[in-house]
């Protein structure tokens, strides 16, 4: 009986209480639009200042990857989905139909960059990992990439 109650409770926690879908053209000015919009959506969950800043940074990194790498500055569509669950877990996915990543493991290595100008740090995925609980990357060359980031917010009202 105890086990079935725990299962039911866990199931309730997974319930999606709100969801946002956003489609933006892959323009660099939309990096700020994306993180600002996601930040506004997340504000209703009463995150800490730190948690909100973490997730805005994560969105900025993922969207920048779409603009710079997936579409190579040629434009395309970026699809952002944000789900808030009853247990205060936030799931953000950022998807593109760009060039895809041939070697995801290599791309996620800190300091790895294909840029030769010395102006890119190669720290985008490392920042996403540092500022969230989990990062999942699915990619197919020539088809696109989906980055999903999970972060559990602290209980509402706690500092």
């Amino acid at each position, binding site marked *: 009986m105890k086990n079935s109650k725990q299962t039911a409770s866990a199931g309730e926690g997974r319930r999606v209480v709100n969801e946002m879908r956003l489609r933006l053209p892959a323009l660099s000015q939309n*990096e*700020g*639009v994306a993180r*600002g919009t996601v930040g506004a959506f997340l504000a209703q969950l009463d995150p800490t200042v730190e948690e909100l800043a973490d997730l805005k940074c994560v969105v900025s990194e993922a969207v920048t990857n779409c603009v710079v790498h997936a579409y190579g500055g040629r434009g395309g569509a970026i699809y952002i989905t944000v789900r808030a669950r009853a247990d205060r877990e936030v799931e953000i996915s950022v998807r593109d139909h760009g060039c895809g990543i041939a070697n995801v493991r290599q791309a996620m290595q800190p300091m790895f960059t294909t840029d030769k100008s010395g102006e890119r*740090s190669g720290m985008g995925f*490392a920042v996403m990992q*540092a500022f969230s609980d989990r990062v999942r990357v699915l990619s197919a060359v020539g088809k696109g990439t989906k980055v999903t980031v999970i972060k559990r917010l602290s209980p509402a009202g706690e500092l």
Partner: protein
Amino acid sequence: MFGSSRITVTLDGGTLTISPRGEIDHHSARSLRDRIDNEMYLNRPAILILDLSGVDFMDSSGLGLLLGRYQRASEIGCDLKLAGCSARTKKILELSGADKLFDFLAKA
């Protein structure tokens, strides 16, 4: 406005202080990079201080901007220092180990 930044520039003897304000992301980093480089090459200071106290958002594109300026400043024998870094900016620098490259000042 999202992803925008403005700068103020002060030259005091051999010290050039550049203070960006606003958000540093991939979008704003491009124009910021050009403005900082223009001022640096024009004035050829012994010390360049980037005062980040007015920066309220920075991601890894900002880190790329700082690393790039470190490289350019080194090439002309200019000593680059960072002032007014927030805890968050420092965290991003520390993730990459770039914090070891810079001298940090509490204030510009």
